[in-house]
């Protein structure tokens, strides 16, 4: 009988933390202006005006918008930049990928 090839739990956690896909989520706040959020999205992600407005409206109407997906290191950099602009941004594992 072959032993299970499952990695020890600690190794699995390390793999999830460093690899895989992560998402950058912006949460709604009642303070920042819509025009400000649009500008920040255009500046930080290079979105065109229409995409930036769509994402801003998602934040405003649904309370959150996933603005970027990808590797953790780059996702962290985006979260830092968004927080530097005083937006409420969080990092989440992208369970869909």
């Amino acid at each position, binding site marked *: 009988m072959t032993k299970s090839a499952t990695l020890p739990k600690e190794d699995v956690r390390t793999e999830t*933390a460093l690899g895989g896909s992560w998402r950058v989520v912006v949460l709604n*706040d*009642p*303070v*920042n*202006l819509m*025009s*400000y959020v649009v*500008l920040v999205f*255009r*500046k930080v992600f290079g979105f065109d005006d229409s995409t930036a407005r769509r994402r801003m409206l998602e934040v405003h109407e649904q309370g959150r918008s996933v603005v970027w997906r990808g590797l953790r290191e780059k996702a*962290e950099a985006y*979260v*830092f930049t968004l*927080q*530097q*602009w*005083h*937006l*409420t941004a*969080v*990092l*989440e594992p992208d369970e869909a990928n």
Partner: protein
Amino acid sequence: MKRIEVKLAVPIVAPLLDVIREQAAGLRDALAGPTGLPDADPELGESWGGELLEAQRSEIDALLGLFGEEFFREGAVSFDGDNAEVILRACAAVRLRLREHALKTLGDDTLETGELEISRLPRDVNRAFRCYVFLATLQEVIIQHLDESILGG
């Protein structure tokens, strides 16, 4: 480089500067909004917060620097590609702090809609709310006139 000069009424704006200065003092040691990363190790967390705080202090210094002698003499403040971004951020930081402190009693719905009778507010809240609106107006002016400078910078 595109530059805009905004003329302000000194007697109206000067009292609001006291509000900005009060909030600015608090923003030297505390970040305006929620920050950080989930499951970050303590060293990264400390460095993360430290860098954000340092940037925030620079923003606040730039905002306070707008209202120097020239402002009180001429009533004018100027924005260009060099200061637009930091002033925008500073305004956001002060507004967030006002929400958490001086305007806490108003509630988020009221802040978001702006639907309230300012004249009925207690004096301190009234002044803080006028400052909150004033900073938003500065942001709107900058975004309207200098967005290309910021996006290109």
